[in-house]
């Protein structure tokens, strides 16, 4: 068990009340800003003391208000990388990395520092001060500094937020391979869905100080537990409907005058929310022969077309508002514009049903 946590704590107006059990790392705690993600990480690091609760990392109890256990931060063996990295401004990259190695013999410490600088590719920057380093180099120094003490767990708070987009993409891969190379257990905090998808074996969604859902990335992104989680993980179509019948595990749902097939833990007569991720929706011309096995084919009229990064977001009124994410090429090929009639297609497996109430 990587993490077994239950912490309660008041921070001004904010109440943290998080419960989270995670078997397999890397764990990514994801949620909007102000959800209490950083506070949770700080509680694990031991620099924030919860009012009550229990924290165990790799089966080792670090905090337990009932039995009065509160392992001091300096004895927890956590590799903490806070937001913006908090490098010691007066120390060189080398000295930053070696900061936690006071207990080691001098030769041993020096060897360890060299090893980590090599591992993170910082040999040439070793005598530079933090302000002489680029954002990516700073992140690597912080990572090397945290890894130097051979931590039981690495705690990274928004490690990529301070970087520009191209650097971020490259470093994300570096960090991933570094973590698998060192085999260190790690817990990330981020508000970025893509980071969660690429880094996590387990995703925990946090909102308003509480953990709302824990699962594999597939679970959380494909089957969000409630409407807010669905919105946060990027489900754009959320429509209210009612389950008409169940047929071999597939539910037929009445929604906005249409029938949609989908999966989920529901029974006939349930009021449900129909969730569809925009990238799962395919648009085609009216009258075109369907070549897919998709169970849901809904005819509708384009309401809005708006660019969304490299893609185009198309909102179609099919009796309810259905959002599709399509390529620029298909927008051109299909001649999509507001007012056009088209057909939206998506698989039953792309439909996630959330029971209401």
């Amino acid at each position: 068990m990587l993490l077994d946590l239950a912490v309660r704590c008041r921070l001004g107006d904010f109440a943290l009340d998080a419960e989270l059990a995670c078997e397999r790392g890397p764990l990514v705690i994801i949620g909007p800003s102000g959800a209490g993600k950083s506070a949770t990480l700080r509680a694990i690091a031991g620099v924030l003391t919860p009012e009550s609760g229990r924290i165990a990392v790799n089966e080792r109890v670090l905090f337990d208000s009932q039995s009065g256990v509160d392992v001091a931060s300096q004895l927890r063996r956590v590799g903490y990388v806070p937001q913006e990295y908090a490098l010691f401004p007066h120390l060189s990259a080398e000295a930053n990395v070696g900061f936690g190695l006071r207990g080691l013999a001098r030769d041993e410490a020096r060897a360890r520092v060299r090893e980590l600088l090599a591992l993170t590719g910082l040999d040439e920057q070793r005598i530079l001060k933090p302000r002489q380093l680029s954002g990516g180099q700073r992140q690597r120094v912080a990572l090397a500094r945290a890894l130097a003490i051979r931590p039981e767990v690495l705690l990274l708070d928004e490690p990529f937020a301070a970087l520009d987009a191209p650097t971020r993409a490259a470093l994300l891969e570096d960090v991933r391979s570094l973590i698998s190379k060192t085999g260190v257990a790690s817990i990330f905090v981020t508000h970025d869905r893509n980071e969660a998808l690429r880094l996590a074996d387990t995703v925990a969604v946090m909102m308003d100080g509480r953990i709302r859902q824990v699962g594999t990335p597939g679970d959380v992104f494909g089957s969000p537990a409630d409407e807010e989680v669905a919105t946060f993980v990027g489900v754009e179509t959320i429509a209210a409907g009612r389950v008409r019948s169940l047929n071999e595990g597939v539910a037929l749902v009445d929604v906005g005058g249409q029938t949609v097939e989908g999966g989920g833990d529901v029974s006939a007569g349930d009021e449900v929310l129909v969730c569809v991720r925009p990238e799962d929706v395919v648009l085609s011309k009216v009258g075109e022969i369907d070549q897919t096995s998709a169970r849901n084919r809904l005819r509708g009229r384009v309401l809005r077309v708006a660019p969304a990064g490299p893609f185009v977001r198309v909102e179609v009124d099919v009796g309810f508002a259905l959002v599709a994410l399509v390529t620029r090429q298909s927008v051109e090929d299909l001649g999509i514009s507001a007012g056009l009639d088209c057909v939206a297609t998506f698989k039953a497996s792309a439909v996630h049903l959330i029971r209401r109430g």
Partner: protein
Amino acid sequence: MAVRVERGRSLQVAAETVAIVIISAVVLLFLALPVFAIIERALEKTDVFDVASSARVTEALRLSFETTAISLALVIAFGTPLAYWLARTKFPGHEVLDALIDLPIVLPPAVGGLGLLMAFGRNGIVGSSLHDIGIDLAFTTAAVVMAQTFVASPFYIRAAKAGFEAIDRDLEDVAQTLGSSRAGVFLRVAVPAAMPALMAGAVMAWARALGEFGATIMFAGSFPGRTQTVPLAVYRSLETGVDVPLALSAILVVISFAVLLAFRLLMKRAAFTL
């Protein structure tokens, strides 16, 4: 039309520039003229260098530098942990403590000196007991140091506190997770990270101690070689003419200016390398 508006603008800009230059010149002149006057008159007078090397002057200078060095060491040694504690701990009534620490800045130095006398003088609250065991502080070199420490410490503590408050708390948290004790965090992270502020505070405190007059003359008196620092010597020697005070003042002006300038250049370099 457009040209006219533009010309109007540029005229306004010119007028503003002239106004700023005139105001700045007046202020700078007011500040610089007395300083210049001291140097100019000192050099014009009879052998300034002879006077400067007279026993009376060198003795005052030596005393001033020795006492201010000790005062500064005391202020730093005790003020740094205090400032750190004040910056990190918020407790009810800390405003009262802050105000108390700042008090010597506002009080006339003579009042401070009187206070020291009432506390540590022969009949003072603590002084009477000290007198009983054979320790008399008033009118000794130790009293000079105490007077300087009293008036100068707020300058250092204020700057140090602000410096500690400005440190990113994540630095200290990380240091903790890397195995540092609280003392380790203070010595290895907080003090180095706040160093520019500590240095600035130390320079201001030293400058204040060097110029200290009122509290010293009340609590330590003005005995040549024992308690007569440069400011006191300037005042006392006025009775016998203007040569000695001018020479002393000129030396003080030059040294003070050199220290402040050196400090600024040093900080500029520190900011660059930090």
